């Protein structure tokens, strides 16, 4: 590699201020767009994941061995013993924000006239408030209190059962031993999430109530864990397993959210293909732009190149020189793009775009109303890399054409 060639390339680039300006601008904006795009894609992916974690899976779940296989019938006889104590032990881990033991059971809610099949979630009010999001959707009344009997019911169910805050409903269910049970329970709060199934079918009661009602004192069908950070959840799984192994002899199954949200993960994978194609289109646009301007540039520099050839430069060197010019342009594009991308990313990461619709006012959807990007340093590497690749590919053909310029071309039009 010839340093002289390199210096020549740099000088050429700097000399053609106008063209360089446009090329660097084009490359820079393309790079910035790619950086922004990556941040947005990651942001929307995380949004989906966080939402799934909030509403469905939590970060990590613990079950008694064998529960997963039977989960469809909502078994109460495959349970974790001493669940509260184990939850507290799990909370000792620094990565864990809270661990909520729950009983998940099928039951019937009745107002004496109509009966509704429901899913009962018996939870520790405080732990659940830190693990789940349902307490943010309570629109009437209050969240659970472990010292008081009470049930939190969805808005749709409340309307259909004609129930009112403070009034009692009948809860019928079968205990873990299949015995029948029936009890009055006052409506303590009403929630509304906008998901009609949830608002109709799910009810919340205190865990202690669940122990008594389902005749399974101290037990839980699951322990749901919320971590301080979503990243690295699968690594925390082994630490949870360790703590559990030290605390109890029970055979327990521990898994992270990816296990329970397979459909979301698969859906994201399918989306990747979509985005890959989008990238190809973007990069094509960038490459084309560069090729275009560089070709024009070569065309106009024909006399100049002819002169260089006349002075003794070989074809190969001309070729290399053009390539180096592309390289320099690429560098310029990376710098410009990184700065511009940085500004755009900063804005999208912090301010974002707000999603507001009229429908949201009637409903307390337990998720954010802002669309934020989530940029990472690797985005700049990818953006920069693509900028360089675009620049180099862009000059490939012009470089070849330039190399073919004959010596005599210098004479054809005169050097300017």
């Amino acid at each position, binding site marked *: 590699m010839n340093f002289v060639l390199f210096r020549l390339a740099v000088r050429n680039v700097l000399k053609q201020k106008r063209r360089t300006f446009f090329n660097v601008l084009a490359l820079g904006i393309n790079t910035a767009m790619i950086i922004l795009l990556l941040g947005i894609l990651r942001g929307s992916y995380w*949004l989906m994941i966080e939402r799934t974690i909030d509403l469905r899976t939590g970060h990590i779940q613990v079950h008694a061995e064998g529960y997963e296989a039977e989960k469809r019938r909502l078994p109460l006889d495959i349970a974790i013993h001493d669940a509260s104590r184990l939850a507290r032990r799990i909370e000792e881990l620094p990565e864990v924000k809270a661990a909520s033991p729950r009983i998940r059971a099928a039951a019937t809610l009745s107002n004496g006239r109509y009966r509704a099949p429901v899913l009962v979630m018996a939870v520790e009010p405080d732990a659940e408030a830190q693990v789940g999001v349902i307490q943010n959707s309570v629109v009437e009344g209050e969240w659970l209190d472990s010292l008081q009997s009470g049930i939190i019911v969805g808005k749709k169910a409340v309307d259909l059962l004609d129930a009112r805050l403070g009034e009692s409903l009948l809860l019928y269910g079968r205990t873990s031993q299949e015995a029948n049970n029936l009890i009055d329970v006052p409506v303590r709060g009403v929630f509304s999430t*906008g998901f009609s199934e949830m608002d109709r079918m799910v009810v919340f009661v205190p865990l202690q109530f669940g122990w008594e009602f389902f005749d399974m004192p101290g037990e839980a069908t699951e322990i749901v864990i919320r971590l301080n950070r979503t990243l690295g959840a699968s690594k925390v799984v082994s630490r949870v397993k360790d703590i559990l192994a030290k605390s109890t002899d029970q055979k327990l199954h521990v898994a992270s959210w990816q296990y329970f949200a397979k*459909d979301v993960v698969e859906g994201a994978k399918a989306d990747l293909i979509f985005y890959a194609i989008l990238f190809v289109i973007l990069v094509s646009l960038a490459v084309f732009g560069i090729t275009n301007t560089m070709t024009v540039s070569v065309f*106009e520099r024909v006399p100049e190149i002819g002169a260089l050839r006349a002075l003794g430069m070989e074809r190969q060197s001309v070729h290399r020189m053009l390539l180096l010019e592309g390289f320099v342009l690429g560098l310029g594009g990376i710098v410009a793009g990184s700065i511009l991308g940085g500004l755009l990313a900063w804005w999208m990461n912090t301010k974002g*775009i707000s999603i507001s619709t009229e*429908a*949201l006012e009637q409903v307390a959807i337990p998720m954010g109303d802002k669309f934020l990007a989530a940029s990472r340093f690797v985005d700049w590497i990818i953006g920069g890399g693509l900028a360089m690749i675009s620049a180099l590919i862009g000059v490939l053909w012009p470089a070849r054409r330039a190399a073919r310029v004959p010596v005599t071309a210098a004479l054809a039009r005169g050097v300017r």
Partner: protein
Amino acid sequence: MIFKIAFRNSIKAWRRTLAVVGAVAVSVFLLEIGAGYMDGFRQKIYTEAVRENGHLRLVAKGYADKLDLLPLTPNMQISDSLLEFLGSFPEVEAVRPAIRFGLLANSASDVSLEMLGLGISPSVSRRMYQRLANAVVEGDFLNGPDQVVIGTEAARLLKVSVGERLILLSSDVNSGFSAVEPQIAGIFRSLNAEEDAQFLLCDLGTAQRLLNLPNRVTEITIELAHREQTENYLEKLRPHLPAYIEPRTWRQDQASLIYLLKLSDVAMAVLAAIVLVVAALGMINTFLMSVLERLPEFGTLRAIGMGRTQLVSIVVLQGFFSGVIGTVIGLIAGIPVVLYYQAHPINYGEAMESFKGVDSQIGMAFEPTTALWVLALGLVIAVGASLYPAIYASRKRPVEILRSLA
């Protein structure tokens, strides 16, 4: 006069004109493809979200207020005349009477599984559940009477495969227990784990026999050409709907759906903006450069006395010509590609094992409004990107221009 000059100039410097036209054409081509691609993606999201459940859902009055998840009463009687009437409007794509019910599936291996069933006529089922019909891994989708289709997880749990018979046990409309034994026509693979394990599709006749609902259904969903036509269509229907039927639009049924659609709209808009900026930049670049390179020419023209306005006009006109031609060429090349992929979406599931059976299609969608926007953009850029430097150039005194180029 100016036109003639502009026109002749373009032809004379045909290489440059060609370069500009070519640049515009390629940018517009890629932009149209990118837009068609994203329109296709957005349409798919909307399709799956709204179309599947129907733009309009007709149920018997009181059905939506039942506390049971899948009540069989109140239900509706369907007659040919009612169905014909519902479908008699031009915006209607499909009328889909169906029965939703809960059931216990029981296989010869003595495994029982609680499932959610939908009884629907096979001809309409493929349309309604295109997503699943595209994801059949074994056998075929519903294509005749006395058939069911289930997901891979359900098939695994029940230990059954295509061709075997499956007993469906349910509580019929009179609260007695009832059972039928249709044949498994096919198995689909759904990305949604719940659906893959619990959703069962059978032909309407089988459901009606099982539940003792001859000529009756629990719902009629109607698919329209476009979701925005829903309210209008409903207004046309309302005066003629029998009193026992209650219509519900897709907007009414799911607030959360609206949120999700808004979210995807925002995401798509941002992506579209990005592609647009990149494409526009390429075109602006082209025009700017082409004008600025002709500065010496302008200098000469001004020197021989051409007025400023005249100069600007000629430049802009030339830009406009190139822009129009380039944009049109780009669209002529791009639109057929979009239309082709709209009709023949690529199925990457066949290429990649891990995606096998999933609804793994990449298609495009041609939306005339999008194409018009692209056309407008091309022209605006052509004019704008020629105008600005032209004005800049025209402001300079001829002498300055010539001197700066020496």
